[in-house]
């Protein structure tokens, strides 16, 4: 029973981080109809920035205060996104989709090496934060408290996004633009500004995912592409452009991955791709997507 709880919590942990990344990707697509192939790099960037900042101050600040630094990764990713959208993405909205893919792929290459340039080829970590929180005893199992924090962040993010998109005025503008850009424009909405805001928000989410998982898993060079591919599996299942889909997809992927690791450690990746393939075959738009 206690082992079961640990498994459930681990699945939720993975789902939380995935929701942040995939939710950001879906949000951007929903509003702007573009897929940023470099989205995973924003996640990695968030992790690296947080790790770096914590590393700078770890000797001088008390651990409790260091937690406050984590969101800096998310903010940095948001800032990077705010810079990238008007410069690199906007010139391509009117052009054939191949060019959008090519430019975001070029961005992926640039950011991949940028991470290496800034922080070197070795992983960065801030495990002090992870260890400082201690662990919970569940029956005979031990579970790190930090992971519970990550799950809480994921849940809060889901709630926050929902409230933001459905309860705020900006959310209304976002939804209007996403449903009919021309109409929104005709109604006086500054679409360019909405785009940059949506993109920034999406990057913030990805960066937050990276920042929040970093104390547990460190910041590693390849985390970006792995994250992108996993986020892709989530949006395939949940439907590109849907936040509910990102949530449900993330939960499903989290659970399946946990089952996979437990029973079939060798083919864990394959099970996830299989799941995505099955969903693509039955319902190509995903569970919540717009066909």
């Amino acid at each position, binding site marked *: 029973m206690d082992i079961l709880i640990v498994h459930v919590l681990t699945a939720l942990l993975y789902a939380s981080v995935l929701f942040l990344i995939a939710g950001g990707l879906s949000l951007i697509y929903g509003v702007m109809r573009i*897929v940023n192939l470099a989205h995973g790099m924003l996640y990695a960037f968030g992790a690296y920035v947080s790790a770096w900042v914590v590393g700078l101050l770890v000797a001088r600040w008390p651990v409790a205060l260091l937690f406050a630094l984590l969101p800096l990764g998310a903010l940095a990713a948001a800032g990077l996104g705010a810079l990238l959208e008007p410069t690199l993405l906007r010139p391509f909205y009117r052009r*054939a989709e*191949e060019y959008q893919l090519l*430019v975001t792929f070029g*961005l992926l290459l640039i950011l991949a090496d940028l991470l290496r340039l800034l922080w070197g080829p070795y992983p960065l970590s801030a495990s002090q934060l992870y260890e400082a929180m201690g662990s919970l005893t569940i029956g005979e199992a031990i579970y790190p408290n930090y992971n519970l924090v990550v799950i809480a962040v994921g849940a809060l993010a889901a709630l926050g996004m929902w409230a933001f998109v459905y309860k705020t005025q900006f959310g209304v503008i976002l939804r209007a633009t996403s449903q009919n850009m021309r109409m929104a424009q005709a109604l006086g909405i500054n679409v360019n500004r909405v785009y940059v805001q949506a993109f920034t928000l999406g990057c913030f989410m990805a960066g937050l995912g990276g920042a929040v998982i970093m104390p547990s898993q460190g910041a590693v060079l390849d985390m970006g592409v792995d994250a992108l591919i996993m986020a892709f599996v989530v949006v395939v299942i949940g439907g590109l452009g849907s936040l509910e889909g990102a949530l449900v997809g993330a939960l499903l992927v989290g659970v399946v991955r946990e089952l996979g690791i437990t029973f079939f450690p060798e083919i864990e*990746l394959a099970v996830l791709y299989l799941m995505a393939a099955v969903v693509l*075959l039955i319902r190509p738009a995903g569970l919540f997507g717009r066909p």
Partner: protein
Amino acid sequence: MSAWPLPPARALRWIVPGLVILAVLPWVLEPYQTTLFSYGLVMAIAALGFNLLLGYTGLLSFGHSAYFGVGAYAVALIVKYFKITSLEVFVVGGIVASAVVSALFGFVCVRYTRIFFGILTMALSQVLWSLAFKFFWITGGSDGLRVPTPSLMGVSLPPREDKMTFLAHRYYYYVLVIFVLATAVMWVIVHSPFGKALQAIRDNETRAEFVGVQVRHYRWVAFVVSGTYTGLAGALWVPLNGLTTPDILHWTFSGEIVFFTVLGGFGTFAGPIVGAIVFNYLKTFAVGYTVYWQMFLGVVLVSLVLALPTGIMGMVARLFGGRRKAPAA
């Protein structure tokens, strides 16, 4: 794409001298330079394959490293398990293996287009990359597998001849012949009724369906041909390199293939060839210059797409094209 294939007369004006130059290359250049050029020819074969999908069918794959790697590893595994070192067997093995894998992957991927297609191809190649590590007892893991100098048409490396000379001469000509054949075959394919159907699919998928072209099936065939060409390139690459590692399965190598095709101009037949050869030199320069050459590539790619989307050959066509309509970017 031009509205009709290059009239033979016009093409011969630069093909014949080109072939002559290619033929005498080893006598003019140092062995190292010739071998470097061989790499370019091999990549050109991969680029031709890749562009069948991109330029002619309108599908942008970010996972072609998978087929290159399958071709390369097929060769390495033939050496490891069958102890055969005949280049003919390598070539056949590489072609068969990559045809099978691209048929399989293609079946899944061509159900989707654009973004989903792109990410799906990338994801599948990453799966292969991670498998190359997981099954390290077969693939040699991160150390990879060594491949000795193969015999060409039954003739092995004589004990007194050094490998560099061999590579620069006999292996170079072998690659050159295959390159010329592969180019000729691809030229026929893209100018065939099948090739026209692919271009129709690229231009207007719905209309193609309504003209009786079963879009998914044709895309799949294009995918298989494309993957097989890239696998052939992989098979020819390994003996040059002496070694195959999981790096060539990684998405960054797919990126290189995309890059040099776009560099040369994916809207023309010869663009990918030019791009591959130019890139080969570009990369050698960049790698020697900085360890962050991937960033350099990314910057050039972004600049290309922003400023020169039709690539080198597109620029050339515009400079010398004159009367002919330039294809829309």
